[in-house]
């Protein structure tokens, strides 16, 4: 029994456009948002101050010491609170995700890659071999090379594949 709300919260992380950046007038939260905010220990005032982040994102950001301003800066780059917290731990700047977005990666992938020590060139190579970034990052952290991973994933498909696929 889902409902449609009066507005799309968290729109910054969806479209990358400024749907509400905390400087303009904020729409009043609806009853569902308020109930959810209470669940996370937040008030209507918190929702307004953190516009346009959702209650769960506000909760996560506050819990990890990310300010509303920082969270918004990350959101404007298309990075949600979960990835923003990880990025802040790595001392990344929001602008660092732009090359990744320009290369067609979800902006949060820049954080995932940084945690695994992958460059954008690495990520593009892995993507070219058919690995989405989080999958590749986990493999890299485990010490896999791209050649090893590409060979391993086809091990059960074609035993007689020519070398160098």
């Amino acid at each position, binding site marked *: *029994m*889902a*409902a*449609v*709300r*009066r*507005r*799309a*919260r*968290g*729109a910054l*992380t*969806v479209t990358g456009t400024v749907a509400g950046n905390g400087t303009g007038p904020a729409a009043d939260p609806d009853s*569902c*948002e308020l*109930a*959810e905010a*209470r*669940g*996370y220990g937040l008030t209507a005032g918190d929702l307004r101050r953190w516009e346009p982040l*959702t209650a*769960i*994102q506000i*909760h*996560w950001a506050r*819990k990890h010491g990310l300010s509303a301003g920082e969270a918004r800066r990350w959101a404007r780059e298309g990075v*949600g*609170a*979960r990835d923003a917290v990880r990025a802040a731990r790595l001392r990344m700047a929001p602008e660092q995700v732009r090359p990744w977005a320009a290369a067609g990666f979800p902006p949060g992938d820049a954080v995932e890659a940084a945690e695994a020590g992958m460059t954008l060139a690495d990520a593009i190579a892995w993507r070219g071999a*058919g*690995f*989405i970034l*989080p*999958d590749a990052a*986990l*493999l890299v952290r*485990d010490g*896999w090379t791209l050649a090893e*991973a590409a060979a*391993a*994933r086809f*091990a*059960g*498909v074609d035993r007689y594949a020519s070398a160098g696929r």
Partner: protein
Amino acid sequence: MLSSQRNKLLCETGPGTPMGELLRRYWQPIAGVSEFERQDTKAVRVMGEDLVLYRDREGNYGLVDRHCPHRRADLAYGFTEGRGLRCNYHGWLFDHDGACLHQPFEETRHPEGAFRDKVRIKAYPVAAKAGLLWAYMGPRPAPLLPDWDRFHSRGYKQIAISEIPCNWFQCQENSIDPVHFEWLHDNWSMTLRGTGGPRAPAHTRLGFDEFDYGFVYRRVRTDTTEAHELWTTGRVCLWPNCLYVGHFEWRVPIDDTSTLSVGWFIDELPGDAPFEQERIPCWQAPIRDEKTGRWIDTHVMNQDFVAWVGQGPIADRTLEHLGESDRGVIILRKRMFDEMAAVAAGRDPLGTIRDPAVNDHVYLPIIGGLNRPARGDGPQPFAFLAGQPGEVRGEHEQAWQQCAAAPAAR
């Protein structure tokens, strides 16, 4: 894709394994309270350990080793007394803390002796809550048994349990896999029913957030926008082995190739007059169609079971090809690796609650809110699992009629 070593880390839950150590830090639902209306003992296997769950005449629940420490007789055939469980072989009696209370012949021969003080049986704490019996198999002190807010909602509640012949983790990966719903439950159902027409609305965007008790997955489909609660609120992959979408589905490892699916369901009732349910029925949901020998595919969770079992007893993740729809699955795996490391380092893992002030109607995000109105056209057929007993359906209908006829409370 994972290495076979990484796959083993996720899948193996026996004593001493990293995942076994992680899962043992949480209370696990293992049976229904109502099952003990008809029996005093029940043999159970949890994370590879063979145990006996019992209720003694004082009302204590106990979970002890399946085998008596005397000569290894099967305590599932033991009998309960005022306090504890007595072995049917030579009469040794054990309580729910594992103490040996009585050894009839030993005490006859050596009344002064205290041999029983030198004998213990493996025993784990058990607690009853929300119609379920929960076991804690980790180091003491145990964290608090979570008091989820949904347990307190007004409605008709029931529990359904099934044994699924595959590893627990492929079941739990389903809890953070939004796109499967479009195919496994919508499009496949339409195919099974032979209904023509267009495919179900397609997913166009996924999002994942984290909170204190797991992850929220969010989705936009061709028939929704970012203003829909499927995106704004989302659904919960409840840490570490549950799905919460207004009802709960726990996936408790029986051993490494079988899983106990424990479903806790609630149906809203009309009106607002107080409704107290004296007992929450617990029933066994079949997964195989006895006539055809195939897996049952008519109900939502049965369809999930078909997918999980189809992945093999333990899914071989060395051969998989993960795509954009699997981002949630990767998030879940990473968090599992992190939390296994946290436990190995001596830390409390994610989501354990130790503060009683926190453990009071603990909030979980829910689409539609916690107190949703009942549908106006009567109790709905149970859509989640095949095999709902007629008596449970009858109780639900009776509760509905009782509430529909009751005067409004306000």
